[in-house]
Protein backbone atom coordinates (compact mmCIF):
# COMPACT_ATOMS: atom_id res chain seq x y z
CA UNK A 1 0.00 0.00 0.00
CA UNK A 2 1.37 3.38 -1.03
CA UNK A 3 0.25 5.48 1.91
CA UNK A 4 -0.28 2.92 4.66
CA UNK A 5 2.37 0.70 6.15
CA UNK A 6 1.05 -2.01 8.47
CA UNK A 7 3.45 -3.31 11.11
CA UNK A 8 3.77 -6.97 11.93
CA UNK A 9 1.54 -7.47 14.99
CA UNK A 10 -0.07 -10.35 16.81
CA UNK A 11 -3.73 -10.74 15.81
CA UNK A 12 -5.61 -10.45 19.09
CA UNK A 13 -8.75 -12.01 17.65
CA UNK A 14 -6.82 -15.12 16.65
CA UNK A 15 -5.31 -15.29 20.12
CA UNK A 16 -8.79 -16.10 21.43
CA UNK A 17 -8.15 -19.55 19.98
CA UNK A 18 -4.41 -19.99 20.55
CA UNK A 19 -3.86 -17.99 23.76
CA UNK A 20 -4.61 -18.37 27.44
CA UNK A 21 -1.99 -20.91 28.51
CA UNK A 22 -1.13 -18.72 31.51
CA UNK A 23 2.61 -19.43 31.44
CA UNK A 24 3.47 -15.78 30.93
CA UNK A 25 5.12 -13.58 33.50
CA UNK A 26 3.00 -11.83 36.12
CA UNK A 27 3.07 -8.20 35.10
CA UNK A 28 4.14 -6.53 38.29
CA UNK A 29 6.82 -9.07 39.11
CA UNK A 30 9.40 -7.75 36.70
CA UNK A 31 10.31 -4.15 37.35
CA UNK A 32 7.56 -1.74 38.06
CA UNK A 33 5.96 -2.91 41.32
CA UNK A 34 3.88 0.23 41.34
CA UNK A 35 1.95 0.46 38.09
CA UNK A 36 0.40 -2.36 36.19
CA UNK A 37 0.51 -2.79 32.47
CA UNK A 38 0.50 -5.88 30.34
CA UNK A 39 1.68 -4.29 27.13
CA UNK A 40 5.33 -4.87 27.87
CA UNK A 41 4.91 -8.52 28.76
CA UNK A 42 5.87 -11.25 26.35
CA UNK A 43 3.99 -14.38 25.42
CA UNK A 44 5.85 -17.41 26.72
CA UNK A 45 4.74 -19.56 23.77
CA UNK A 46 5.84 -16.94 21.25
CA UNK A 47 9.24 -16.70 22.96
CA UNK A 48 9.69 -20.47 22.74
CA UNK A 49 8.89 -20.41 19.06
CA UNK A 50 11.43 -17.65 18.33
Amino acid at each position, binding site marked *: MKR*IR*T*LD*TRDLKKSVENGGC*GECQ*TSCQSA*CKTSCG*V*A*NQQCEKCMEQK
Partner: protein
Amino acid sequence: MIHQYKLGGYNIVLDVFSGAVHAVDEVAYDAIALYETHTKDEIKAELLAKYGERENLSAGEIDEVLADIEQLKADGKLFTEDVYADRAFDFKNRSTVVKALCLHVAHTCNLNCSYCFAAQGKYHGERALMSFETGKRALDFLVEHSGTRKNLEVDFFGGEPLMNFEVVKQLVAYARSIERQAGKNFRFTLTTNGVLLNDEVTEFANRECHNVVLSLDGRKEVHDRLRKTVNGQGSYDLIVPKFQDFVQKRGNRGYYVRGTYTKYNLDFTNDIFHMADLGFTELSMEPVVSAPDDPYALSEADLPTLYKQYELLAEEMLRRRRAGKPFTFYHYMIDLSGGPCIYKRISGCGSGTEYLAVTPWGDLYPCHQFVGDEKYRLGDIWSGVTNTEVQQEFKLCNAYARKECRDCWAKLYCSGGCAANAYHATGAVTGVYELGCKLFKKRMECAIMLKVAEALDKAESNM
Protein backbone atom coordinates in the same frame (compact mmCIF):
# COMPACT_ATOMS: atom_id res chain seq x y z
CA MET B 1 -12.31 1.24 17.63
CA ILE B 2 -9.24 3.05 16.37
CA HIS B 3 -6.82 5.49 17.99
CA GLN B 4 -4.93 8.00 15.87
CA TYR B 5 -2.10 10.25 16.95
CA LYS B 6 0.93 12.11 15.65
CA LEU B 7 4.23 11.83 17.43
CA GLY B 8 7.91 12.11 16.56
CA GLY B 9 7.06 12.99 12.97
CA TYR B 10 4.98 9.85 12.48
CA ASN B 11 1.25 9.48 11.83
CA ILE B 12 0.07 6.42 13.72
CA VAL B 13 -3.20 4.49 13.67
CA LEU B 14 -3.94 1.73 16.17
CA ASP B 15 -6.74 -0.73 15.60
CA VAL B 16 -7.65 -1.43 19.19
CA PHE B 17 -9.36 -4.81 19.04
CA SER B 18 -7.07 -6.53 16.53
CA GLY B 19 -3.88 -4.97 17.90
CA ALA B 20 -2.85 -3.81 14.41
CA VAL B 21 -0.57 -0.77 14.08
CA HIS B 22 -0.37 1.32 10.93
CA ALA B 23 2.10 4.05 9.99
CA VAL B 24 0.41 6.28 7.46
CA ASP B 25 0.95 9.50 5.54
CA GLU B 26 -1.16 12.60 6.13
CA VAL B 27 -3.69 11.83 3.41
CA ALA B 28 -4.36 8.32 4.71
CA TYR B 29 -4.41 9.67 8.27
CA ASP B 30 -7.22 12.07 7.42
CA ALA B 31 -9.04 9.52 5.24
CA ILE B 32 -9.09 7.02 8.12
CA ALA B 33 -10.35 9.71 10.50
CA LEU B 34 -13.26 10.47 8.18
CA TYR B 35 -13.97 6.95 6.97
CA GLU B 36 -16.64 5.82 9.39
CA THR B 37 -18.57 9.06 9.55
CA HIS B 38 -18.47 10.44 5.99
CA THR B 39 -19.44 9.22 2.53
CA LYS B 40 -16.70 8.54 0.02
CA ASP B 41 -17.65 11.65 -1.94
CA GLU B 42 -17.44 13.79 1.19
CA ILE B 43 -14.01 12.36 2.01
CA LYS B 44 -12.80 12.98 -1.53
CA ALA B 45 -14.00 16.56 -1.49
CA GLU B 46 -12.41 17.25 1.87
CA LEU B 47 -9.06 15.69 0.96
CA LEU B 48 -8.91 17.37 -2.44
CA ALA B 49 -9.59 20.72 -0.83
CA LYS B 50 -6.82 20.16 1.72
CA TYR B 51 -4.17 18.33 -0.32
CA GLY B 52 -5.15 18.79 -4.00
CA GLU B 53 -2.88 21.71 -4.63
CA ARG B 54 -0.33 21.16 -1.89
CA GLU B 55 0.54 17.60 -2.81
CA ASN B 56 -0.88 17.43 -6.28
CA LEU B 57 -3.28 14.78 -5.06
CA SER B 58 -5.67 13.34 -7.64
CA ALA B 59 -9.15 11.87 -7.16
CA GLY B 60 -7.75 8.54 -8.39
CA GLU B 61 -5.18 8.49 -5.61
CA ILE B 62 -7.88 9.09 -3.03
CA ASP B 63 -9.81 6.15 -4.49
CA GLU B 64 -6.69 4.05 -3.98
CA VAL B 65 -6.40 5.07 -0.32
CA LEU B 66 -10.07 4.36 0.30
CA ALA B 67 -9.71 0.94 -1.33
CA ASP B 68 -6.74 0.20 0.92
CA ILE B 69 -8.74 1.18 3.99
CA GLU B 70 -11.61 -1.04 2.84
CA GLN B 71 -9.17 -3.92 2.37
CA LEU B 72 -7.69 -3.48 5.85
CA LYS B 73 -11.17 -3.42 7.31
CA ALA B 74 -12.06 -6.62 5.46
CA ASP B 75 -8.81 -8.20 6.72
CA GLY B 76 -9.72 -7.37 10.33
CA LYS B 77 -6.96 -4.79 10.77
CA LEU B 78 -8.97 -1.59 10.87
CA PHE B 79 -12.25 -0.66 12.55
CA THR B 80 -12.38 -4.10 14.16
CA GLU B 81 -15.37 -4.70 16.41
CA ASP B 82 -15.07 -5.57 20.09
CA VAL B 83 -15.75 -9.29 20.36
CA TYR B 84 -14.29 -9.67 23.85
CA ALA B 85 -16.69 -7.72 26.06
CA ASP B 86 -19.08 -10.62 26.60
CA ARG B 87 -16.28 -13.03 27.39
CA ALA B 88 -14.83 -10.75 30.03
CA PHE B 89 -17.74 -11.35 32.37
CA ASP B 90 -16.87 -15.05 32.52
CA PHE B 91 -13.73 -13.99 34.33
CA LYS B 92 -15.63 -13.66 37.56
CA ASN B 93 -16.32 -17.35 37.63
CA ARG B 94 -13.08 -18.59 36.14
CA SER B 95 -10.91 -20.89 38.21
CA THR B 96 -7.46 -19.53 38.76
CA VAL B 97 -4.17 -20.97 39.90
CA VAL B 98 -1.43 -19.23 41.82
CA LYS B 99 1.70 -18.75 39.73
CA ALA B 100 3.58 -15.93 41.42
CA LEU B 101 4.39 -14.92 44.97
CA CYS B 102 5.91 -11.76 46.32
CA LEU B 103 7.76 -13.04 49.36
CA HIS B 104 8.21 -10.33 51.96
CA VAL B 105 11.28 -11.87 53.52
CA ALA B 106 12.13 -8.71 55.43
CA HIS B 107 9.79 -6.13 56.86
CA THR B 108 12.69 -3.94 57.75
CA CYS B 109 15.09 -1.81 55.78
CA ASN B 110 18.55 -0.32 56.00
CA LEU B 111 17.42 2.81 54.17
CA ASN B 112 14.87 5.35 55.28
CA CYS B 113 13.35 6.59 52.03
CA SER B 114 10.82 9.35 52.54
CA TYR B 115 8.39 8.19 49.84
CA CYS B 116 8.41 4.45 50.68
CA PHE B 117 4.90 3.03 50.20
CA ALA B 118 5.98 0.29 52.59
CA ALA B 119 6.60 2.83 55.37
CA GLN B 120 10.34 2.24 55.63
CA GLY B 121 9.84 -1.47 55.05
CA LYS B 122 7.53 -2.10 57.98
CA TYR B 123 4.22 -1.81 56.11
CA HIS B 124 2.76 0.07 59.08
CA GLY B 125 3.40 -2.93 61.35
CA GLU B 126 6.22 -4.49 63.35
CA ARG B 127 9.71 -5.08 62.01
CA ALA B 128 10.08 -8.75 61.11
CA LEU B 129 12.11 -11.26 59.13
CA MET B 130 10.52 -14.28 57.47
CA SER B 131 11.71 -17.59 58.91
CA PHE B 132 12.90 -20.41 56.67
CA GLU B 133 9.95 -22.55 57.81
CA THR B 134 7.43 -19.89 56.77
CA GLY B 135 9.17 -19.32 53.44
CA LYS B 136 9.36 -23.05 52.79
CA ARG B 137 5.65 -23.40 53.45
CA ALA B 138 4.99 -20.47 51.07
CA LEU B 139 6.90 -22.26 48.30
CA ASP B 140 4.97 -25.48 48.99
CA PHE B 141 1.74 -23.45 48.92
CA LEU B 142 2.72 -22.06 45.53
CA VAL B 143 3.46 -25.50 44.09
CA GLU B 144 0.24 -26.96 45.55
CA HIS B 145 -1.91 -24.19 44.06
CA SER B 146 -0.19 -23.83 40.70
CA GLY B 147 -2.09 -26.55 38.85
CA THR B 148 -0.44 -27.39 35.56
CA ARG B 149 1.52 -24.11 35.34
CA LYS B 150 5.18 -24.88 34.88
CA ASN B 151 6.79 -21.48 35.33
CA LEU B 152 6.46 -20.14 38.87
CA GLU B 153 7.72 -16.71 39.89
CA VAL B 154 8.98 -15.73 43.30
CA ASP B 155 10.13 -12.23 44.10
CA PHE B 156 12.24 -11.66 47.19
CA PHE B 157 10.94 -8.35 48.38
CA GLY B 158 10.85 -6.17 51.43
CA GLY B 159 11.77 -3.84 53.03
CA GLU B 160 15.21 -4.89 52.01
CA PRO B 161 15.36 -8.65 51.28
CA LEU B 162 19.13 -8.84 51.64
CA MET B 163 18.67 -8.17 55.36
CA ASN B 164 17.44 -11.79 55.39
CA PHE B 165 19.89 -13.17 52.83
CA GLU B 166 20.55 -16.46 54.63
CA VAL B 167 16.85 -17.34 54.40
CA VAL B 168 16.76 -16.24 50.76
CA LYS B 169 19.60 -18.66 50.00
CA GLN B 170 17.94 -21.48 51.92
CA LEU B 171 14.63 -20.92 50.14
CA VAL B 172 16.22 -20.96 46.71
CA ALA B 173 18.06 -24.18 47.60
CA TYR B 174 14.77 -25.69 48.80
CA ALA B 175 12.92 -24.63 45.63
CA ARG B 176 15.64 -26.11 43.44
CA SER B 177 15.42 -29.36 45.42
CA ILE B 178 11.70 -29.78 44.70
CA GLU B 179 11.18 -28.22 41.28
CA ARG B 180 12.12 -31.17 39.09
CA GLN B 181 9.94 -33.65 40.92
CA ALA B 182 7.09 -31.15 41.04
CA GLY B 183 7.43 -30.45 37.30
CA LYS B 184 8.01 -26.77 37.95
CA ASN B 185 10.50 -24.11 36.97
CA PHE B 186 11.11 -21.42 39.59
CA ARG B 187 12.09 -17.98 38.39
CA PHE B 188 13.42 -15.78 41.15
CA THR B 189 13.57 -12.02 41.25
CA LEU B 190 15.45 -10.00 43.84
CA THR B 191 14.49 -6.38 44.44
CA THR B 192 17.22 -4.59 46.37
CA ASN B 193 18.42 -1.14 47.37
CA GLY B 194 22.00 -2.35 46.94
CA VAL B 195 23.35 -1.46 50.38
CA LEU B 196 24.26 -5.08 51.16
CA LEU B 197 25.35 -6.08 47.66
CA ASN B 198 28.70 -7.87 47.84
CA ASP B 199 30.56 -10.57 45.93
CA GLU B 200 28.62 -13.39 47.55
CA VAL B 201 25.24 -11.83 46.77
CA THR B 202 26.38 -11.05 43.22
CA GLU B 203 27.52 -14.60 42.60
CA PHE B 204 24.28 -15.96 44.08
CA ALA B 205 21.99 -13.60 42.16
CA ASN B 206 23.79 -14.18 38.88
CA ARG B 207 23.44 -17.93 39.35
CA GLU B 208 19.89 -18.11 40.67
CA CYS B 209 17.91 -15.00 39.84
CA HIS B 210 16.05 -14.65 36.59
CA ASN B 211 15.78 -10.93 37.24
CA VAL B 212 17.25 -8.43 39.67
CA VAL B 213 15.74 -5.02 40.33
CA LEU B 214 18.20 -2.39 41.56
CA SER B 215 16.73 0.75 43.09
CA LEU B 216 18.33 4.00 41.96
CA ASP B 217 16.53 7.28 41.39
CA GLY B 218 19.05 8.83 39.01
CA ARG B 219 21.23 11.89 39.61
CA LYS B 220 23.00 12.03 42.94
CA GLU B 221 21.09 15.04 44.24
CA VAL B 222 17.76 13.51 43.23
CA HIS B 223 18.55 10.10 44.68
CA ASP B 224 20.01 11.44 47.92
CA ARG B 225 17.09 13.76 48.59
CA LEU B 226 14.70 10.90 49.32
CA ARG B 227 16.79 7.72 49.56
CA LYS B 228 18.72 8.20 52.77
CA THR B 229 20.40 5.86 55.20
CA VAL B 230 18.97 5.56 58.71
CA ASN B 231 21.57 8.17 59.71
CA GLY B 232 20.14 10.65 57.24
CA GLN B 233 22.96 10.41 54.72
CA GLY B 234 22.33 10.04 50.99
CA SER B 235 22.92 6.52 49.70
CA TYR B 236 24.03 7.28 46.12
CA ASP B 237 27.77 7.03 46.68
CA LEU B 238 27.31 3.83 48.64
CA ILE B 239 25.31 1.94 46.06
CA VAL B 240 26.23 3.16 42.57
CA PRO B 241 29.67 1.49 42.46
CA LYS B 242 28.07 -1.71 43.77
CA PHE B 243 25.40 -1.62 41.04
CA GLN B 244 28.00 -0.97 38.36
CA ASP B 245 30.10 -3.89 39.55
CA PHE B 246 27.01 -6.10 39.79
CA VAL B 247 25.75 -5.31 36.30
CA GLN B 248 29.19 -5.73 34.78
CA LYS B 249 29.35 -9.25 36.24
CA ARG B 250 25.77 -10.09 35.32
CA GLY B 251 26.49 -10.36 31.61
CA ASN B 252 23.34 -10.70 29.55
CA ARG B 253 21.06 -11.88 32.36
CA GLY B 254 17.96 -9.87 33.23
CA TYR B 255 18.09 -6.82 35.45
CA TYR B 256 16.54 -3.40 35.80
CA VAL B 257 17.85 -0.27 37.38
CA ARG B 258 14.59 1.12 38.69
CA GLY B 259 13.87 4.60 39.91
CA THR B 260 10.94 6.53 41.27
CA TYR B 261 10.24 10.09 40.19
CA THR B 262 8.32 12.64 42.20
CA LYS B 263 7.33 16.29 42.01
CA TYR B 264 10.91 17.07 43.02
CA ASN B 265 12.28 15.79 39.69
CA LEU B 266 9.67 16.42 37.05
CA ASP B 267 12.62 16.50 34.61
CA PHE B 268 13.07 12.79 35.31
CA THR B 269 14.42 12.04 31.84
CA ASN B 270 17.67 13.58 33.05
CA ASP B 271 17.73 10.87 35.71
CA ILE B 272 17.15 8.17 33.11
CA PHE B 273 19.90 9.59 30.92
CA HIS B 274 22.14 9.71 33.97
CA MET B 275 21.50 6.01 34.60
CA ALA B 276 22.34 5.28 30.96
CA ASP B 277 25.50 7.37 31.23
CA LEU B 278 26.53 5.32 34.27
CA GLY B 279 26.56 2.30 31.96
CA PHE B 280 23.18 0.77 32.79
CA THR B 281 21.09 -0.26 29.80
CA GLU B 282 17.94 -1.82 31.32
CA LEU B 283 16.04 1.02 32.93
CA SER B 284 12.74 1.66 34.62
CA MET B 285 11.37 4.84 36.14
CA GLU B 286 8.04 4.92 37.94
CA PRO B 287 5.77 7.74 39.05
CA VAL B 288 5.68 7.89 42.85
CA VAL B 289 2.78 6.22 44.65
CA SER B 290 1.66 8.63 47.36
CA ALA B 291 -1.21 10.38 49.06
CA PRO B 292 -2.31 13.50 47.14
CA ASP B 293 -1.21 15.78 50.01
CA ASP B 294 2.35 14.43 50.24
CA PRO B 295 4.79 17.23 49.35
CA TYR B 296 6.35 15.14 46.57
CA ALA B 297 3.01 13.92 45.12
CA LEU B 298 2.37 14.28 41.40
CA SER B 299 -0.74 16.16 40.33
CA GLU B 300 -2.80 16.93 37.24
CA ALA B 301 -0.99 20.26 36.94
CA ASP B 302 2.26 18.36 36.29
CA LEU B 303 0.86 16.47 33.31
CA PRO B 304 1.96 18.81 30.48
CA THR B 305 5.52 18.69 31.82
CA LEU B 306 5.42 14.92 32.24
CA TYR B 307 4.00 14.36 28.74
CA LYS B 308 6.87 16.39 27.31
CA GLN B 309 9.34 14.35 29.37
CA TYR B 310 8.03 11.07 28.01
CA GLU B 311 8.24 12.42 24.45
CA LEU B 312 11.75 13.67 25.07
CA LEU B 313 12.71 10.26 26.41
CA ALA B 314 11.35 8.50 23.32
CA GLU B 315 13.14 10.90 20.99
CA GLU B 316 16.42 10.52 22.85
CA MET B 317 16.08 6.72 22.86
CA LEU B 318 15.55 6.84 19.12
CA ARG B 319 18.61 9.04 18.70
CA ARG B 320 20.77 6.78 20.86
CA ARG B 321 19.53 3.64 19.11
CA ARG B 322 20.38 5.10 15.72
CA ALA B 323 23.79 6.09 17.12
CA GLY B 324 24.40 2.50 18.25
CA LYS B 325 24.06 3.27 21.97
CA PRO B 326 20.59 1.96 22.81
CA PHE B 327 19.05 1.48 26.22
CA THR B 328 15.80 -0.14 27.26
CA PHE B 329 13.06 1.67 29.15
CA TYR B 330 10.68 -0.77 30.81
CA HIS B 331 7.50 1.07 29.87
CA TYR B 332 8.55 1.46 26.26
CA MET B 333 9.16 -2.25 25.84
CA ILE B 334 6.41 -3.60 23.69
CA ASP B 335 6.51 -6.72 21.60
CA LEU B 336 3.93 -6.19 18.88
CA SER B 337 4.32 -9.62 17.30
CA GLY B 338 5.03 -11.71 20.40
CA GLY B 339 3.17 -9.82 23.10
CA PRO B 340 0.41 -11.00 25.38
CA CYS B 341 -2.68 -12.82 24.12
CA ILE B 342 -6.16 -11.42 24.60
CA TYR B 343 -6.72 -13.38 27.83
CA LYS B 344 -3.71 -11.74 29.44
CA ARG B 345 -4.69 -8.35 28.07
CA ILE B 346 -8.12 -8.61 29.61
CA SER B 347 -7.18 -10.19 32.92
CA GLY B 348 -4.13 -8.06 33.76
CA CYS B 349 -1.57 -8.55 36.49
CA GLY B 350 -3.42 -11.29 38.36
CA SER B 351 -3.18 -9.60 41.76
CA GLY B 352 -5.33 -11.38 44.33
CA THR B 353 -5.69 -14.43 42.14
CA GLU B 354 -2.58 -15.60 40.26
CA TYR B 355 -0.26 -13.30 42.15
CA LEU B 356 -0.20 -13.01 45.95
CA ALA B 357 2.02 -11.34 48.50
CA VAL B 358 3.18 -13.25 51.60
CA THR B 359 4.12 -11.41 54.80
CA PRO B 360 6.93 -12.54 57.14
CA TRP B 361 4.21 -14.22 59.20
CA GLY B 362 2.70 -16.14 56.27
CA ASP B 363 -0.37 -13.97 55.74
CA LEU B 364 -1.63 -13.63 52.17
CA TYR B 365 -2.53 -10.32 50.51
CA PRO B 366 -3.62 -9.53 46.93
CA CYS B 367 -0.28 -7.87 46.20
CA HIS B 368 2.63 -6.15 47.93
CA GLN B 369 0.82 -2.81 47.86
CA PHE B 370 -2.06 -4.10 50.01
CA VAL B 371 0.13 -5.64 52.69
CA GLY B 372 -0.70 -4.22 56.10
CA ASP B 373 -4.26 -3.26 55.15
CA GLU B 374 -6.12 -5.75 57.30
CA LYS B 375 -9.36 -5.71 55.32
CA TYR B 376 -7.46 -7.00 52.32
CA ARG B 377 -5.90 -9.93 54.15
CA LEU B 378 -6.90 -12.95 52.05
CA GLY B 379 -5.83 -15.78 54.37
CA ASP B 380 -2.55 -17.49 55.07
CA ILE B 381 -0.19 -20.02 53.52
CA TRP B 382 -1.42 -22.81 55.78
CA SER B 383 -5.19 -22.45 55.29
CA GLY B 384 -5.05 -20.81 51.85
CA VAL B 385 -7.38 -18.05 50.69
CA THR B 386 -10.30 -17.82 53.10
CA ASN B 387 -11.45 -14.28 52.36
CA THR B 388 -13.11 -15.28 49.09
CA GLU B 389 -15.23 -12.13 49.00
CA VAL B 390 -12.16 -9.96 48.52
CA GLN B 391 -10.70 -12.41 46.03
CA GLN B 392 -13.88 -12.19 43.95
CA GLU B 393 -13.43 -8.43 43.88
CA PHE B 394 -9.97 -8.92 42.38
CA LYS B 395 -11.21 -11.50 39.90
CA LEU B 396 -13.48 -8.79 38.56
CA CYS B 397 -10.62 -6.36 38.08
CA ASN B 398 -10.18 -6.64 34.35
CA ALA B 399 -10.17 -4.50 31.25
CA TYR B 400 -13.97 -4.49 31.12
CA ALA B 401 -14.70 -3.96 34.81
CA ARG B 402 -14.87 -0.17 34.76
CA LYS B 403 -17.38 1.94 32.87
CA GLU B 404 -14.72 4.66 32.52
CA CYS B 405 -12.65 2.25 30.39
CA ARG B 406 -15.46 1.41 27.97
CA ASP B 407 -14.36 3.85 25.29
CA CYS B 408 -10.66 3.90 26.15
CA TRP B 409 -8.30 2.81 23.37
CA ALA B 410 -5.64 1.72 25.89
CA LYS B 411 -7.63 -0.81 27.88
CA LEU B 412 -6.07 -3.82 26.16
CA TYR B 413 -2.62 -2.44 26.99
CA CYS B 414 -3.27 -1.75 30.68
CA SER B 415 -6.06 -4.29 31.44
CA GLY B 416 -7.92 -1.68 33.41
CA GLY B 417 -4.95 -0.48 35.42
CA CYS B 418 -3.35 -1.21 38.76
CA ALA B 419 -5.86 -2.22 41.46
CA ALA B 420 -3.66 -0.75 44.18
CA ASN B 421 -3.35 2.61 42.44
CA ALA B 422 -7.11 2.63 41.91
CA TYR B 423 -7.73 1.81 45.55
CA HIS B 424 -5.38 4.48 46.85
CA ALA B 425 -6.86 7.11 44.52
CA THR B 426 -10.56 6.28 44.84
CA GLY B 427 -11.05 3.89 47.75
CA ALA B 428 -12.12 1.03 45.45
CA VAL B 429 -10.00 -1.50 43.57
CA THR B 430 -12.41 -1.14 40.67
CA GLY B 431 -11.99 2.63 40.66
CA VAL B 432 -9.91 4.58 38.16
CA TYR B 433 -6.67 6.39 38.98
CA GLU B 434 -7.02 9.07 36.34
CA LEU B 435 -3.55 10.57 36.62
CA GLY B 436 -2.05 7.10 36.23
CA CYS B 437 -4.27 6.44 33.19
CA LYS B 438 -3.13 9.61 31.48
CA LEU B 439 0.54 8.83 32.06
CA PHE B 440 0.04 5.24 30.94
CA LYS B 441 -1.58 6.31 27.68
CA LYS B 442 1.23 8.73 26.97
CA ARG B 443 3.80 5.99 27.59
CA MET B 444 1.97 3.62 25.24
CA GLU B 445 1.86 6.23 22.49
CA CYS B 446 5.59 6.74 22.87
CA ALA B 447 6.29 2.99 23.00
CA ILE B 448 4.33 2.35 19.82
CA MET B 449 5.95 5.33 18.11
CA LEU B 450 9.35 3.77 18.81
CA LYS B 451 8.19 0.50 17.24
CA VAL B 452 6.94 2.39 14.19
CA ALA B 453 10.29 4.19 13.91
CA GLU B 454 12.13 0.89 14.24
CA ALA B 455 10.02 -0.76 11.54
CA LEU B 456 10.40 2.14 9.12
CA ASP B 457 14.15 2.42 9.79
CA LYS B 458 14.48 -1.29 9.07
CA ALA B 459 12.44 -1.04 5.88
CA GLU B 460 14.56 1.89 4.74
CA SER B 461 17.83 0.08 5.40
CA ASN B 462 16.58 -2.89 3.37
CA MET B 463 15.75 -0.75 0.35
